[in-house]
């Protein structure tokens, strides 16, 4: 209670302090007068001492002195900054760039990496996978038998559930579409810790196969169906299937992979009994069990299962991965790289503003010295300068956040790289806090150098300087500025090297010879059950005006192969082979496919309409397969087979096809004609057009629709676009890092320019004398450049060391380039040295034009 009264009186004082001041002053005058009456005026004043100081001391008792002084500092800083709009604008803009960029990146990092997943206690959720030790694969889908054994034998998990992707047909407008759904086991929702907002999740009876079909709806789908609260317990019809709705999920829940519907996964599902590996397993760790413990336990169980079921589980291990790692995965490394890059940019911006402030502080020496001489404490002066810099940084922060807001909105709208959790990205409290922290930290950081400089004053000399006169004998100060410039250069070099690495790797990626001609080709995916009648559809498409060729295959050409297998291909007269070096791609294609895709034949022929069901079996192999399995022998006429009893005759050798981003040598692959082989899952139709391909998309879709009313037709896109999409992620990181690096280059070049320019201005007098004594303009130029070059060499050396240490972080983003790449290192530092030389050259040129007479008369 007491402190409340005290606080109230303190606040009262704050708001009525003018009156309190008057009171105090009058009171003291009264005291003084009374004393004067007693001892005489002079004695009284002597005894009383400094009335103003006393008053200050009395006021201090109220405890607002700190705040008031601070308010005065801020007030003063605002005035000082407003009087110098040019400086302020440059500084604020530089900082806004730095803080804005880093805030934008942070908001993405925050949403994707830092914010917990929207499940109960998400840190305890793990995905459990099978592994294939021989193939080096550590995340393979799981068979039902293994899941059951894991669940029975493991002690680390509270719950263990399986799920698998599914889909239902639903008409959206006139077009049938697939709605993403998941079939999940009974433990699925309890493991995630998600409660439905209406109704319930599945009960054990519903996970028996004979149970009536039930479903849980996502919030979004429920709203699209009308959002009726009484829908629970009723049945909904999707296309031909009818389900009873038992529950509605809360908004935002769409696990896994944007599911809108959940069905119970029956333990006796027909696929569950044939050993198929197709399930994903999620588990919740028991309290107190660590990730490592669960991983160890899963490995032990897998080893046991290998012994118990040597047939089924040969070479199969188990691997538990935290769910966050699973979802965020590769994005983590890339985002951290970006965060580091953007941090470098921010530091460079800091260094630049620090440089500006140093120049300013030098110009303000007289003022500061005067204030020090009048009794201002050093701490007070330093604080004054610091509040100025923090104020600058905060202003930069405000503009930065505004910029980041728009950047982030644009980024989310474009979603250029399909980042996980992209829709959670927003400028929220945490991001604002980050921006505020970044602003204050940068403000203190770049304000520190000038503030420290000012707190070690050389009063006599500073006061003697005329306003704006160039001070001599200040090597120390200049060293500080040079240090800053060198640090900037170092950071910029590190960024540039990283950017060049990504740029080179990107160029490598897109300059891989494709082996096909994507120009003017349109592609779309069709449901696989149309494959038996695909020739009929293709014939109709070929008849459309503007269509040059149409074909279909199990994959688009840049995927190199629809499926691959390391033991399927057999060659007549040779033993069966198995192992990594025998991996072979397999694609089923229609006779028109090669023409539509623009793949060239090296020898022999491709399939024709004559290669039908009853004709002799044929196959086409690619060059890589010919080179691996037939070396210098002629493969044509040889007999091969792929898991079938019949042998097929090789009738041609096709050129290698390679998609963007596929590292290493092209995969050996074999093509079978569609009428003689089983289609896998995908049916991709390719149409080569004589007109701009997208303009035909409507007509093609209409033709397909008239051929089959119920068929689900995927989005049409050009192969060019699909290729571009396949490199969207590396391109995005490349563009961003190159952008940051250029920004850094620019900002640090400006910084170096400022440093050298300032030093030239300061040395005008000296240069004048040198020239008067016979120095040629060339000598002066060389002298100034040497100074700049000194900075640069130190900076570049530091930067290369930094790059050497940090480019390893880029490893996973690189393609065809190693992180320690001499060319990239040389190129990065070369670009920077050029920029710095240019930045030095301009002031150096000015130095050569110094008129000795003018310069000497200057003093």
């Amino acid at each position, binding site marked *: 209670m*007491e402190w409340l*009264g*005290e606080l109230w*009186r*303190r606040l009262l*004082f704050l708001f009525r302090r003018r009156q309190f001041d008057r*009171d*105090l002053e*009058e*009171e*003291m005058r*009264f*005291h003084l*007068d*009374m*004393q004067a*009456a007693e001892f005489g005026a002079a004695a009284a004043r002597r*005894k*009383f*001492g400094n009335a103003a100081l*006393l*008053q200050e*001391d*009395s*006021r*201090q*008792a*109220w*405890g607002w002195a700190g705040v008031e002084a601070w308010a005065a500092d801020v007030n003063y800083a605002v005035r000082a900054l407003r009087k110098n709009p040019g400086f302020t604008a440059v500084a604020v803009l530089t900082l806004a760039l730095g803080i804005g960029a880093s805030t934008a990146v942070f908001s993405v990092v925050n949403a994707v990496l830092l914010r917990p997943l929207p499940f109960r206690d998400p840190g305890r959720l793990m995905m459990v996978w099978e592994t294939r030790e021989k193939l080096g694969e550590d995340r393979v889908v799981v068979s039902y038998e293994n899941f059951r054994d894991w669940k029975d034998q493991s002690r680390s998990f509270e719950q263990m559930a399986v799920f698998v992707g599914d889909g239902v047909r639903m008409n959206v407008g006139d077009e049938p579409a697939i709605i993403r759904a998941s079939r999940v086991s009974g433990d699925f929702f309890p493991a995630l810790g998600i409660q439905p907002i209406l109704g319930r999740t599945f009960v054990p009876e519903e996970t028996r196969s004979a149970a009536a079909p039930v479903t849980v709806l996502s919030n979004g789908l429920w709203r699209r169906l009308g959002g009726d609260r009484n829908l629970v317990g009723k049945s909904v019809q999707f296309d031909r299937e009818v389900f009873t709705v038992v529950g509605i999920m809360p908004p935002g829940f769409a696990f896994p992979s944007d599911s809108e519907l959940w069905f119970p996964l029956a333990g006796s599902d027909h696929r569950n009994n044939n050993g198929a590996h197709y399930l994903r397993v999620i588990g919740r760790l028991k309290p107190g069990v660590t990730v490592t413990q669960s991983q160890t336990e899963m490995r032990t169980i897998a080893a046991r299962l290998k012994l118990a079921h040597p047939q089924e589980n040969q070479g199969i291990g188990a691997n538990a991965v935290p769910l966050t790692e699973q979802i965020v995965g590769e994005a983590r490394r890339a985002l951290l790289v970006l965060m580091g890059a953007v941090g470098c940019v921010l530091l460079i911006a800091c260094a630049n503003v620090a440089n500006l402030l140093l120049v300013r502080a030098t110009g303000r020496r007289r003022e500061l010295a005067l204030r020090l001489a009048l009794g201002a404490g050093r701490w007070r002066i330093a604080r004054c300068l610091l509040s100025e810099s923090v104020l600058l940084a905060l202003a930069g922060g405000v503009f930065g956040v505004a910029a980041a807001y728009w950047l982030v909105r644009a980024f989310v709208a474009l979603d250029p790289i399909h980042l996980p959790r992209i829709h959670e990205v927003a400028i929220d409290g945490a991001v604002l806090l980050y921006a505020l922290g970044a602003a204050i930290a940068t403000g203190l950081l770049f304000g520190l150098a000038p503030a420290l400089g000012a707190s070690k004053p050389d009063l006599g000399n500073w006061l003697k300087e005329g306003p704006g006169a160039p001070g001599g004998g200040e090597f120390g100060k200049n060293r500080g500025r040079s240090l800053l410039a060198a640090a900037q250069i170092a950071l910029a070099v590190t960024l540039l090297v990283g950017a060049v690495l990504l740029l080179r790797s990107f160029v490598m990626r897109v300059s891989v010879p494709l082996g096909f001609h994507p120009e003017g080709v349109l592609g779309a995916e069709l449901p696989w059950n149309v494959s038996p009648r695909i020739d009929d559809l293709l014939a109709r498409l070929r008849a459309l005006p503007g269509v040059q060729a149409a074909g279909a295959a199990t994959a688009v050409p840049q995927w190199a192969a629809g499926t691959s297998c390391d033991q399927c291909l057999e060659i007549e007269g040779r033993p069966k082979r198995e192992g990594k070096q025998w991996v072979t791609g397999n694609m089923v294609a229609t006779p028109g496919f090669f023409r539509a895709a623009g793949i060239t034949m090296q020898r022999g022929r491709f399939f024709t309409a004559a290669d039908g069901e009853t004709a002799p079996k044929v196959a086409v192999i690619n060059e890589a397969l010919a080179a691996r399995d037939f070396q210098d022998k002629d493969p044509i006429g040889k007999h091969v087979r792929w898991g079938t009893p019949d042998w097929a005759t090789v009738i041609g050798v096709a050129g290698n096809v390679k998609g963007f981003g596929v590292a290493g040598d092209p995969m050996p692959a074999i093509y079978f004609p569609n009428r003689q082989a089983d289609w896998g899952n995908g049916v991709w139709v390719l149409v080569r057009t004589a007109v701009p391909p997208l303009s035909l998309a409507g007509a093609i879709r209409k033709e397909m629709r008239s051929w089959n009313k119920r068929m689900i037709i995927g989005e049409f896109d050009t192969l060019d676009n699909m290729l571009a999409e396949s490199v969207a992620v590396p391109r995005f990181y490349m563009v961003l890092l190159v952008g940051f690096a250029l920004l850094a280059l620019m900002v640090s070049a400006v910084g170096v320019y400022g440093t050298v320019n300032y030093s030239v201005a300061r040395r005008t007098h000296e240069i004048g004398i040198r020239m008067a004594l016979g120095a040629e303009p060339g000598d002066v130029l060389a002298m100034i450049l040497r100074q700049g070059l000194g900075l640069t060499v130190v900076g570049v050396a530091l930067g290369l060391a930094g790059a050497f240490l940090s480019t390893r972080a880029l490893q996973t983003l690189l393609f065809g380039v190693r992180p320690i790449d001499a060319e990239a290192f040389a190129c990065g530092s070369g670009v920077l040295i050029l920029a710095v030389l240019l930045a030095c050259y301009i002031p150096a040129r000015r130095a050569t034009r110094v008129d000795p007479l003018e310069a000497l008369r200057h003093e």
Partner: protein
Amino acid sequence: MLILKTLNQLGPMHGYGIAQHIQQTSEAVLQVEEGSLYPALQRMLIKGWVIAEWGQSDNNRRARYYRLTPAGKKQLSVEISEFEKVMRAITRVIQPA
């Protein structure tokens, strides 16, 4: 404590009067410096031990009178008993046994 005691004895009094009183009563042994008197008074204002109001001084000038509040009185008795405790302790220490 001295200020509180003075105010308790004299009733409302201005700063100068307080200083004078302490000096006189203590026979000039205790000099109250202005440099500590006024900050001390301000602190007491904050604590709520005294309140200040303007009044007429003996020589008809406006002067600021400080008056003890009930909280101040309580504080005074606390401080006096504290002081006496300390005094007794010191006396016991310095007196020959």
